[in-house]
């Protein structure tokens, strides 16, 4: 695995149509485990993840990895809030990133089948991915992200609108990946999920990092009034 951490974001600002979505954000991501990004709706969680991943244009600031940018690009993966399903079979969806990265079809298929089984879709490998249930699509999207063994994995609200069972399966996948050495950065609305997964937490408010801290302490005794109110379930704007 490529040594690409720490990730250093400096003064990252994203503006669209004259409105500042995030920034300026300064953020360091290092070590291992799961970083959870929380905050009210519109705080810029999705934009921040996309900016770090490098798929959104920055209006100011830089995102630097410890390795060259092209190498870093290949060693990270992103799972979107609404999983994007290619109009192909489950198996073909899984092997797409491998094939795009130049792996031979036979090896890719073998690995793809293994992952199909791992996410419980072994019997559905030939079915069109577009007809899967919401939870199955999300698992497939996560597996498709993990199959390239990324050093860093971004997930944007991975269990939004999933039921309990599917959420648990999704969290198991994320935890297994994190234990395997993949650095995970995920945004979530689900405070229970944040508490279960986080090693550290980033609290975003109005496009800025309002508070940052290691997980148990942050959730137990947040340093700022807004974070305290947000964790208590109040409406924070």
């Amino acid at each position, binding site marked *: 695995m490529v040594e690409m951490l720490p990730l250093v974001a400096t003064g990252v600002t994203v503006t669209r149509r004259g409105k500042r979505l995030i920034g300026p954000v300064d953020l360091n991501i290092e070590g291992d485990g799961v970083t959870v990004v929380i905050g009210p709706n519109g705080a810029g969680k999705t934009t921040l993840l996309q900016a770090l991943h490098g798929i959104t244009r920055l209006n100011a600031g830089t995102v630097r990895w410890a390795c060259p940018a092209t190498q870093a690009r290949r060693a990270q993966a992103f799972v*979107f809030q609404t999983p994007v399903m290619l109009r192909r079979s489950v198996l073909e969806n899984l092997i797409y990133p491998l094939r795009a990265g130049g792996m031979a079809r036979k090896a890719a298929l073998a690995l793809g089948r293994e992952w199909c089984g791992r996410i419980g879709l072994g019997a559905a490998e030939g079915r069109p991915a577009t007809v899967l249930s919401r939870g199955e699509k999300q698992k497939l999207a996560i597996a498709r992200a993990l199959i390239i063994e990324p050093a860093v994995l971004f997930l944007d609200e991975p269990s939004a609108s999933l039921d309990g069972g599917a959420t648990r399966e999704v969290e198991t996948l994320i935890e297994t990946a994190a234990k395997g050495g993949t650095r995970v950065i995920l945004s979530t609305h689900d405070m229970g999920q944040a508490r279960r997964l986080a090693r550290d937490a980033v609290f975003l408010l109005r496009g800025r990092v309002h508070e940052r801290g290691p997980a148990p302490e942050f959730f137990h005794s947040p340093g700022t009034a807004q974070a305290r109110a947000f964790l208590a379930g109040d409406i924070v704007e």
Partner: protein
Amino acid sequence: MTDLWGGLYAAARLLITLDPDLIEIALRSLRVTLSALAIACVIALPLAALLAVRRFRLRRATIAILNALMGLPPVVVGLVVYVLLSRAGPLGVLGLLFTPTAMIIAQVIIIVPLVASIAHQSLRELWAEYHDLLISLDTTQRQRIATLLWDGRRSLLTAALAGFGRAIGEVGAIMVVGGNIDHATRVMTTAIALETGKGNFALALGLGFVLIALAIAVNLAIHWLSRTERGQQW
């Protein structure tokens, strides 16, 4: 009304007796149209995908022009190709005028904008769906185009069939550049025009019905081969 019945009768007789002239011109029609369609698809489909995935300065203008060219008057295309291929023209040395090749060239020019426009329309929607993922996976432009063409193949079939429909029923351009020469460049449409001109309505209508049947048969065959509208296909 009697002409219509006469036409049906003529069509039946031509088909049942396997009229050699009919078979010859029907096969030539298919050969010219399918060749033109194949060449047009090779040009138009990647172009449509490129227009979907790539942002360049003249993109909007290119799309607008392609859309406008869908209404290209065939007879004008025929005339331009005629001038280019005629003995005195820049490509005159090739000696292509009044050959099936000239007809194929004219038809390619007529259907490329049509196929490209329809294909672009559906690939654009597919790209909107795939955009985030393919950008995130750091795919090359080539891979993006290949993915769109493969995953969008069913809607591209519609684009190709529209091109086929336009080409098989086209008469203006191929009449001008082909010349409707018996046993050389006569095809279904030019034969119909000729028989109509001679006042031979029954035979003209008969040929017309055969042409329609041919077009439907090709469409059905392609749909059957590509298994659209079946089960859980998408």
